[in-house]
């Protein structure tokens, strides 16, 4: 059963439309991540679901109930803020108990529920401390505790890890995921960090300039991006884009002339109309290998970053364009010394002149992978 439904949701500030008609369906227990560059409207969208921003148009339905005009507390949501928003003058216990006190629960009930939340979050020994004496990760847990005690249908997280340092962020990421497993509740999570999105989400919603670019599982987005924006946004380092012209296109193959780099034959169900059009071929840095493959070309490395587990080479192509390649281990490559890299064309992406992906099975009905 879908627990959260957004239909044609819109938000404008004056003449400026920030959210331009968002449709989304979230099922119970799903971990949904909104991801996108800063200013894409992901936080606004979350705040609209929370009830902190008014809705200019469209509907929000939570658990079958229209909630657009309800205050946050009646929507069955709880929110964790980017800055934690802890009450500095209250102890950890009182911070977590705050929503229960507002609700007017009995002292025993409050103790019981706060105790349960503290146990889940390993905050039992900190209950009498003030937030100011806690570390970043502990503060984050208190903020989550305050959300848990209300037993909401949906948890909303607004970039909750962005204030933590890298090591702690990884740790909290794992903690949040196991919390999700333990509670089994629906979570909507906003981040600008695509690694967080990829690792945590059941479903990723990629937003750009107020519209949804694509919705899908992390691997769907990685392997089958719908357009250039998603292809470029998901994956690190970024996908390489090479522009070229289609010289032949039929049910089985699309041949693209990439200029000095060469001519690549992609296994795609291309429409004959594509011939003569300018297209973009996408190659993920990690799909390249040293030496010959079905498609090979020369690159000249500029900067080489050796990370032990893999090596990143920032190269230039024969036509002078930049190109990033990622190899496992630390192969023998040197700055300024050209070498040959190869890629399996089946792993490449193809985008038409509008930046829309040409999928293998699209238009032709072929289902080979």
């Amino acid at each position, binding site marked *: 059963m879908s627990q959260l439904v957004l239909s044609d949701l819109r938000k404008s500030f004056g003449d400026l439309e920030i959210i331009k008609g968002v449709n989304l369906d979230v099922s119970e227990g799903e971990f949904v991540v909104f991801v996108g560059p800063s200013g894409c409207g992901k936080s606004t969208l979350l705040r609209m679901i*929370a*009830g*902190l921003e008014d809705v200019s148009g469209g509907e929000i339905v939570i658990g079958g109930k229209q909630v657009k005009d309800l*205050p*946050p*507390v009646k929507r069955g*949501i*709880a*929110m964790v*803020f*980017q*800055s*934690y*928003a*802890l*009450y*500095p*003058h209250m102890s950890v216990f009182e911070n977590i108990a*705050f*929503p229960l006190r*507002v*609700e007017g629960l009995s002292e025993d009930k409050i103790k019981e529920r706060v105790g349960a939340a503290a146990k889940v979050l390993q905050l039992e020994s900190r209950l009498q401390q*003030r*937030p*100011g*004496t*806690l570390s*970043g990760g502990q*503060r984050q847990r208190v903020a989550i505790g*305050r959300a848990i005690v*209300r037993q909401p249908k949906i948890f909303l997280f607004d970039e909750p890890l962005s*204030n933590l340092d890298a090591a702690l962020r990884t740790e909290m990421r794992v903690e949040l995921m196991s919390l999700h497993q333990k509670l089994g509740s629906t979570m909507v999570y906003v981040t600008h960090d695509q690694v967080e999105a990829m690792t945590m989400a059941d479903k990723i919603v990629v937003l750009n300039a107020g519209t949804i670019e694509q919705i899908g599982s992390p691997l769907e987005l990685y392997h089958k991006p719908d357009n250039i924006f998603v292809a470029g946004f998901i994956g690190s380092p970024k996908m390489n884009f090479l522009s070229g012209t289609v010289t032949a296109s039929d049910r089985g193959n699309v041949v693209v002339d990439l200029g000095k780099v060469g001519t690549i034959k992609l296994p795609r169900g291309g429409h004959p109309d594509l011939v003569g059009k300018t297209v973009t071929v996408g190659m993920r840095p990690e799909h390249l290998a040293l030496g010959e493959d079905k498609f090979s070309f020369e690159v000249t490395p500029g900067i080489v970053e050796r990370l032990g587990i893999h090596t990143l080479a920032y190269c230039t192509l024969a036509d002078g364009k930049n190109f990033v390649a990622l190899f496992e281990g630390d192969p023998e490559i040197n700055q300024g010394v050209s070498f040959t890299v190869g890629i399996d064309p089946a792993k490449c992406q193809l985008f038409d002149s509008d930046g829309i992906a040409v999928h293998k099975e699209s238009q032709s009905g072929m289902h080979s992978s």
Partner: protein
Amino acid sequence: MKNSKPMIDRYTWYETIGIYAGIAVLMFFVLAPFIEGFLVSLKPLALLFSSPYSFWPENGSFTAYFTLWDRVPMMGWYIFNSLLLAFVITVVVMCLVVPAAYAFARFEFPGRGALLGAFLAVNMFSGAVLLIPLYRLMRSLGVLNTYFAMIVPGVAFLIPTAIWLLRAYMMRIPRELDEAAWVDGASRLYTLRRVILPIAMPGIMVAAIATFIGAYAQQFIFALTFNSKTEYMPIGVGLFAFFGRQEVIWNELMAACFIGITPALLIIVFLQRYLVAGLTAGAVKQ
């Protein structure tokens, strides 16, 4: 020699002398009237008119501090009135200003800027400019010669500064705290009471001290104009009792000044303990 101070706080001996000399000059400039006032209060009256004038009170004593009570038996009342007026004004101002400052800090409403500007403009008029209209107003209301006549204008003229002070402080309290409370189901008033007020306490104390001092200082002009009853007089006006037909009893006047200031001073010192900085630590990550 081992110096425990960090490099940025270390000075050579001549720099240290220079710094303290500077402080001494400034302090003397500020405190000179008080020092002279205190010395005068110690001198016998005859010495005050001696020529050449001697600043140092030879055979000085605290006699004036005891004799003044006989000369002006109402002195205790004046001090009490001053404190009462300042206290009531402060309480009333704070009751009005706290919700107002919260509203100005948090809510967008039409005319917010204009209202704030208007409050500032009110501050630019000194009370003296408005004395005559105020007097007429008080007279038609029939409240002349009451505490009320001194409290109301006092409150009115102190509200703008307090609002500006407290609004600035409240604007520094992260908005997320309001939002978090709102998401958790708290009403605006509940949020104000349980979240904003405790965090804003240092700011409220600053505003309260400023108001108290203001109320103490400005009551003179309102008391002089709107009140002619001796028993309601605050100390500022009460001191005129030392101005006789023939002579002014300077030493007792000064002694009365110092006695009059003392309670207010004690209250301010007491309030200052609540000016705890850094209370917002840990609310949000900046």
